[in-house]
């Protein structure tokens, strides 16, 4: 069982600080999804881990052994690339066999024509053929073994790339957006397959994606990386329900979280236009800027009564099982997104006056630096029962 640990990895490209001290521990057999927006340094981190690039500072420890000085080939790490990077001139079977040939045959055993005369070579080659066929069978690509990459579809290439990476039973498995070139249906199907393969192989896996749905649905733990720092590493549910940073809250969740910026008044009261809300964190200095966040499914939209903040509907999107309501708060002019059931959303249309509210426990408060402030932020509204943020 392999463990993997990164500590304080730093990397700059010509003055651009790309990785700003990334630390990460992967438990044996764990599946970790690394998500983040494009350009935040995910691929760079994987390349450093694999030994294809070197970090400016920091430690990489695999099974208790520091590997920073070790060559890529000797780290026993396999990687699936976004472009699959199959060898264009080799058939699928040959592609899958390459890592085995390089590892199991000695240099002389690889010489064409002469090699079969060397003792042990035939047996080793036969074993390689057998392993390739077994791997292909488990990924259901047996019928593709004689084709070259140019003659395969994207999904088929992705499987061959997966087979090539898995066939040598690596200590750590890295995947860099392996599904991003597939169409939506195939992607959902392949997700399940990769999780199943991972469960069977039990190899610690670092899976890079910028698709939050992929990350949340596949991983044991999700690492959210933004701007070269790991902002949070936690189980998918925790990442969604309890983000520790405003960027994490913004990145995860569809539609995105509602955010309203404001500032604290005395005794932790926060102003929202003419409304006042009280924070549990009374120690907040007056004048501190804060941002309140609430996920769209917790925003209640009501057309009657006077609880909540007055707003007007701008736009309604019907998605079948749910309805997304965009409405502008009268007090501050911010657009809020609410996800409601078709029954709740019936009769709403552009211009409908509504009142928005949310239960206190669902409202998150972030400080000016983006960090989450108190755990149970709003206790009660100073003015009304519950205010929306």
């Amino acid at each position: 069982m392999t463990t993997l640990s990164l500590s304080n990895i730093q990397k700059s490209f010509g003055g651009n600080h790309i990785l700003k001290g990334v630390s990460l521990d992967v438990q044996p057999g764990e599946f970790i999804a690394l998500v983040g927006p494009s350009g935040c340094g995910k691929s760079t981190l994987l390349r450093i881990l694999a030994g294809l690039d070197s970090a400016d500072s920091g430690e990489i420890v695999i099974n208790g052994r520091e590997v920073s000085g070790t060559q890529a080939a000797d780290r026993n790490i396999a990687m699936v690339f976004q472009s699959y990077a199959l060898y264009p001139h080799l058939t699928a079977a040959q592609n899958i066999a390459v890592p085995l040939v390089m590892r199991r045959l000695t240099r002389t055993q690889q010489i064409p024509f002469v090699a079969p005369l060397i003792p042990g070579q035939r047996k080793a080659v036969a074993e390689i053929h057998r392993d390739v066929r077994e791997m292909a069978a488990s990924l259901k690509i047996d019928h593709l073994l004689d084709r070259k990459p140019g003659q395969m579809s994207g999904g088929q290439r992705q499987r061959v790339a997966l087979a090539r990476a898995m066939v040598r039973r690596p200590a750590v498995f890295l995947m860099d957006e392996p599904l991003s070139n597939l169409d939506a249906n195939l992607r959902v199907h392949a997700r399940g397959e990769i999780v199943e393969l991972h469960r069977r192989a039990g190899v610690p896996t670092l899976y890079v994606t910028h698709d939050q749905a992929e990350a949340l649905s596949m991983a044991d733990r999700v690492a959210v990386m933004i701007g070269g720092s790991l902002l949070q590493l936690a189980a998918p549910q925790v990442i969604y329900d309890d983000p520790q940073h405003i960027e994490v809250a913004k990145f995860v969740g569809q539609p995105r979280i509602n955010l309203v910026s404001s500032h604290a008044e005395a005794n932790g009261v926060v102003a929202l236009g003419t409304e006042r809300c009280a924070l549990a964190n009374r120690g907040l200095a007056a004048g501190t800027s804060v941002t309140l966040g609430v996920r769209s499914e917790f925003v209640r939209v009501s057309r009657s009564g006077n609880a909540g903040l007055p707003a007007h509907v701008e736009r309604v999107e019907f998605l079948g099982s749910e309805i997304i309501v965009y409405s502008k708060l009268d007090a501050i002019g911010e657009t809020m997104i609410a996800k409601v059931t078709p029954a709740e959303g019936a009769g709403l249309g552009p211009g409908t006056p509504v009142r928005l509210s949310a239960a206190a426990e669902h409202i998150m408060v972030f400080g000016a630096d983006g960090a989450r402030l108190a755990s149970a932020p709003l206790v009660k509204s100073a003015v009304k029962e519950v205010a929306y943020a």
Partner: protein
Amino acid sequence: MSPNAFTLGRIVRLSILSLGALLFLAPYIFMISTAGKAQSDIFTSSLNLIPQHWFYAENFAKAWSRVHMPTLLFNGVIVCLMILVIQVVIAIPCAYAMAKLKFRAAKAMMVLVMLGLLVPIHATALPLYVAFDRVGALNSYMALVAPFSISVFGIFLFLQFFRAMPDDLIHAARLDGMSEIGVIARVIVPNAWPAITAFSIFSVVAHWNDLYWPLIVVSDQAYATPPLGLLYFRAAEAGDDYGALMAATLIITSPLVAAFLIAQKRFVEGITMTGLKG
């Protein structure tokens, strides 16, 4: 409309192309014609394309017997092959390093390659000649081959080609356990055939037809390359026997023509370099 229909535009285009082709082929056609003429035919006042007396057999026999054609052709093949192999073996790793590896002198090397492209062999011929003379290496295959062993043109061509190869392919190869030499031999070269073919054609044509350098370093007939042999032939034997001279020329150009006709498809492929797409 079928693509083969002879519309007016197509006819015009085809005739212009044919005319151009004829213009470029004219000297060669004239050479073929002259190779079959008797001395008296050549020096008549009228210009005939078809020889009046068929003299091909005689002219070819003369050309074949008066100079040692097998030696010339053999020298040509050996020299071109040695130059090509050494050039490719040196240029490919060099271009690979410059295209895909990071090292501090990369920029300086790029400048040197560019400078190398600017300096013609004529500028360095004299110092090279003196050097070969000092080490007593004139009149040898070494003298014919060595100055061309590093082809900056080749490095430049491969560099452009390798730059377009995806980095991930090389990363995957390294993860699979290949050394840098292994990456070149197993991944780069098998995918670089279009570039290698194109370069081979340029190199072989240039050195097969080269007269300038062999003329400088070779005075012994045993090491003469085909164009040089032709020169001896004219000076020593033929005098003004143009029929035999043209026959000899035909013999020494025929290997290239044959090679081109056989490899025509790959030739075009190599020039347009559409190998790695799709």
